């Protein structure tokens, strides 16, 4: 917590207003009982009291549910394709929870790997991620089991922690440190502030009681991979709605489609899901026509395939898939039920 700063809660709106001069500021906002990141209205900071996490993960800001890749127009001479107008404004997202911030570093490597994805990376490069330490986690959260936690800072540029009358402010990345260093609204935090933050974080971590053992989940998944009856049983109640993937912060699968009428149109990409059988369907066959194969792919991608490629587990324990599944499919229960390595048949 070296060099940490603080800001009084009544001055937070002023700080965000200041940042609004250089950035489009987004903050949690609530409509119809649902929390989303939205353009900050210039005054409301009540989210400090009610906000736990947004329904959409933060990925939606960088890999939107639908986006235009380019427009297409046809004339006698052929086709013209044009990129969407370039947006140079920086974007500051305030209040990102640690699990969601972590998801960004997991997504970054995918979109940087081999071929760069210009759409995602451009938005990322223009963004400042300001995290907000969790003080009131949900029952479904299990971030501490997957290398994260209510006070984890991975993927953040700056982290805020609610310590009562004040918010503790810490620069995390180089970008974030610069932004914090020169700011006159921020005061130097005292030893007492830092101790209070430490206590609050410890208490938050204690509130996370859902725990799974992920130490050898990769090996255990590999061991049951070909055990169809295990997967049949695990996938029995899933209705392939796709919610657990579309709203998962680390799922990034997408589809590409054209829409065109009268010679004008666009190519769009939209989120897709490995929970859908159409996702892998080919004219003559479909390697994942069976639901159990799709459920297996979803889980194994997160806990086996992605770790094989990029070392980390592609799950941040945000608990959305548990909270939002219509049939209560629970990823932690399934991971718990994986036979220990020596028990499996293969």
């Amino acid at each position, binding site marked *: 917590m070296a060099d940490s700063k603080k800001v009084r809660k009544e001055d937070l709106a002023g700080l965000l207003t200041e940042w609004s001069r250089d950035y489009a500021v987004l903050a949690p906002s609530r409509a119809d009982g649902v929390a989303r990141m939205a353009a900050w209205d210039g005054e409301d900071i009540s989210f400090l009291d009610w906000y736990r996490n947004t329904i959409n993960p933060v990925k939606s800001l960088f890999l939107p549910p639908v986006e235009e*890749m*380019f427009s*297409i127009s*046809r004339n006698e001479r*052929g*086709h013209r*394709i044009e*990129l969407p107008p370039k947006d140079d404004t920086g974007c500051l997202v305030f209040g990102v929870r640690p699990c969601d911030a972590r998801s960004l570093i997991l997504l970054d490597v*995918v*979109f940087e*790997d*081999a*071929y*760069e*994805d*210009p*759409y995602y990376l451009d938005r990322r490069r223009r963004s400042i991620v300001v995290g907000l330490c969790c003080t009131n986690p949900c029952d479904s959260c299990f971030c501490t089991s997957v290398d994260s936690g209510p006070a984890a800072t991975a993927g953040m540029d700056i982290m805020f922690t609610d310590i009562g009358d004040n918010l503790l402010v810490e620069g995390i990345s180089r970008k974030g440190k610069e932004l914090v260093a020169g700011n006159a609204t921020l005061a130097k935090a005292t030893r007492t502030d830092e101790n209070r933050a430490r206590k609050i974080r410890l208490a938050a971590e204690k509130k996370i009681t859902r725990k799974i053992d992920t130490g050898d989940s990769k090996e255990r998944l*590999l061991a049951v*991979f*070909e055990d169809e009856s295990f997967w049949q049983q695990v996938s029995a109640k899933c209705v392939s709605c796709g919610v657990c993937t579309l709203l998962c912060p680390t799922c*990034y*699968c*997408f*589809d*590409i*489609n*054209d*829409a*065109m009428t009268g010679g004008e*149109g666009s*190519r769009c990409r939209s989120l*897709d899901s*490995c929970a859908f059988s159409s*996702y*892998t*369907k*080919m*004219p*003559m*066959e479909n*390697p*994942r026509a069976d639901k159990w*194969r799709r459920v297996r*792919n979803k889980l*194994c*991608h997160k806990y*086996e*395939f*992605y770790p*094989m*490629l990029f070392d980390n587990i592609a799950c941040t324990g945000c608990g959305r898939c548990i909270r939002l599944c219509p049939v209560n499919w629970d990823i932690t229960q399934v991971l718990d039920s994986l036979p220990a390595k020596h028990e499996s048949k293969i």
Partner: protein
Amino acid sequence: MTITDISHRKMFPARGNVYLPHMVVINKIIDEAPDVRTFHFNFKDKALSEKFTFESGQFGEFSVFGHGEAPFCISSSPTRPDHLECTVKRTGRLTNALHRLSVGAEIGFRGPYGNGFPLEELKGKNLVFVAGGIGLAPLRSLIWNVLDNREDYGKLDIVYGARSPADLVYKYDLASWQKDDRFNMAVTVDRGDEKWQGTVGFVPQVLEHVAPSAQDAVAVVCGPPIMIRFTFPVLDKLGFTSEQMITTLEKRMKCGIGKCGRCNIGNIYVCRDGPVFNYQQVMDLVSSEY
């Protein structure tokens, strides 16, 4: 197995937005078989035509604007750079739209993607090409490539089959290859017709009959999955090791560059890490999903 470093691959364009297609113009269309057509095309921008390079076995993402994109392998050989070719079977929305186009039409192309055949490993070897139906398309690029550098390779065998005589593709190539005494060719059909004088039988059986030697040889097998599954055991019987058998895998694809996710088999993305694999790799891919 994973291949995340693809820096050795030919990138085109090297920089910029990878999703933007280049405009290409169809300059010839050949009816190959019922519902199968070959399209010859060139880049609209002459400078691009000169810069473009690829390897046999690589594929491109083809756009019919308004209908989307689909991957097809480049079926012409890099040794004949005058134009590019792809062969397409009509199966869905995009391929239907492509089949409706005529000469002069403009489509989009981005690529080349994928790993291509390991040409360097094939040099000096006896090659056995085994193909079924439209699976001859990727092999044809390789075959012409090999024929244009004939002295680099040993003995050549081809076993090619289709459901019926009408379903045989590249009949003009087959005719010229049949006359070519630089290699040994067997063409077969599952079911003949009144005019068919050639062999009748399934590809794996005919291969067993031709019985090419495994000595210093590599077999390259492309075709419908069912044919591939029955061909491997025959090759095995003939003494080919799993490293001596090469094939191409087919999966549904969208991005072609390992991002959109759908072409995975375990941690492998067929678009980026394949589509060419040897049989040992196919068996190592953790799953029965291939």
